[in-house]
């Protein structure tokens, strides 16, 4: 099966887009990241939920001390408050290097192998420099179920 048969079209993140919009699209499409595109539609990078949350909400010491956190702690209230403010800021500072791409004609199993090789659960599908959609490990699982039912 080819990726074009299972890929999931999503919006892309662009300059000036807010964190709220990225979170909303990631939540809707059930995907942990979006490609970040220039005005010409060229992919310049990616924004991931994990990176945005880690960079802006979670200081290192909270991560290192995660297991001992109590139930009523002021640091958690502060983090929730920071997270709320974060929703309104532009997503630009959180852009990371571009993710792995595959063309829509690539076989689904190749996508699975590349995800495993790179310890990730999603890939972007790009044809001639234009973003077509994303493939997640959940998409691949659905595909396998469909194959079994055929």
């Amino acid at each position, binding site marked *: 099966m080819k990726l074009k048969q299972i890929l999931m079209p999503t919006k892309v993140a662009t300059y000036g887009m807010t964190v709220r919009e990225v979170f909303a699209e990631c939540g809707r499409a059930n995907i942990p990241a979006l490609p970040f595109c220039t005005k010409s539609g060229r992919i310049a990078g990616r924004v991931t939920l994990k990176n945005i949350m880690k960079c802006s909400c979670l200081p*290192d010491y909270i991560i290192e*001390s995660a297991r*001992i956190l109590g139930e*009523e702690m002021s640091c958690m209230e502060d983090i929730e408050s920071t997270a709320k403010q974060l929703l309104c800021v532009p997503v630009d500072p959180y852009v990371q290097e571009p993710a792995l791409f595959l063309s829509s004609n690539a076989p689904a199993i190749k996508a699975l192998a590349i995800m495993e090789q790179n310890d990730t659960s999603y890939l972007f599908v790009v044809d001639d420099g234009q973003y077509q959609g994303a493939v997640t490990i959940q998409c691949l699982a659905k595909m396998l179920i469909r194959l079994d039912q055929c």
Partner: protein
Amino acid sequence: MHGSAETATHIIFGWDPLWVSSILFVVTYAVIVSEKINRAIVSLLGAGLMVMLGVLNQETAISGIDFNTLGLLIGMMVIVSITKRSGIFQYIAVWSAKKVKAHPWGIMLMLSVVTAVFSALLDNVTTVLLIVPVTLLICHELDLSPYPFLFAEIFCSNIGGTATLIGDPPNIMIGSAVNLTFNDFLFNLAPIVPVILLMTLGILYFVWGRKLQATDEARERIMSFREQDAITDTRLLKQSLTVLALVIGGFVMAKPLQHEPASIAMFGAALLLLLSNLHRSPEQQSENVQQIFAKVEWVTIFFFIGLFVAVKGIEQAGVLEILADRALGLTGGDMTLTALTILWISAIVSAIVDNIPFVATMIPLIKSMAPTFGGAENLMPLWWSLALGACLGGNGSLVGASANLIVAGFAERSGHRIRFLPFMAAAFPLMILSIIVASIYIYLRYL
């Protein structure tokens, strides 16, 4: 005549090995100090050039590598990387904070003492990596600036590390080069460590400790910490503590057992690797062992390897012999003056640059002073001076020790930047005080 003739097989262009090795060493040292290029890369390049330019042949270069130091470092790194997975260190940090009913000064005192004890038994970097996150969390909940706590922990990690053979890399290097045992360090350095620790904590109490206040509500939040949740694997905890105790016991008994510390540490590491993998499938074992080996600080290990070869280069070329003669000329061959000079120079240099290359250079230099002082057995005051100076000197500035930089990094990422000059303004005088105490100790005990 210097040793260069026997060891330099093809010194290029007939250059004088003394100059070639000196220039190579100074450039290597300068680039390490500049911190522009990773220190392991620089030291390996310096070592490689010592061989490529014919200052050393391969056999002599390898003979300069102290495998006892490397074995001890690697063995302890493996043991610590497995042990910390159990969560015991975080457990003790939180438990100690709750033991003093979350009183701010009590917490500062307890975490400082815990840091000193851990640093004596583990390496300083690991210790602060484990203690500092808990400290920042506690300070946040108490609504207090973490600076005094972090300052105290930096000092206590370097002071605690001074006490034992395994506490700080300079001690490992000195111990290995001079065949000093764990007990030698305990008997000679550990007695002065509590004195310096108490003096430091006393000063910190008057500067910051007595002013620290927290509300009952904030203290209640600390009391709600769940230290028991820090323990992730009870079986691993028991295995790790058993092996750690056996290894420490092995160090104490090293002389009667006639084993080198590296052998004990490596055997302990192998034993703990076995115990912590027994319940796993072969595939899981491979993955787990790879993860543990990845935690070994290979940058530090290769830095040491390169450095040992570079130092061997200047030693063989006779540079250190000349430097030792000059140094003895300045001190007039007087043991008291030489010991105190080494102590103070080590402390000041270690406050400014990495103490590892300095100690690596000083070891052969001090060894070559043996004839002047009537034999190697009479050099002991100089070794203890070097160890005290190099370890305590690390407190003089933010760049004095790797642990200091780790603490500063954590603080900055949590929004509490530790600035270089304000830190040094407080730390350097306090370090000097500790060196004054160390000087009195060296003078009264050995001179």
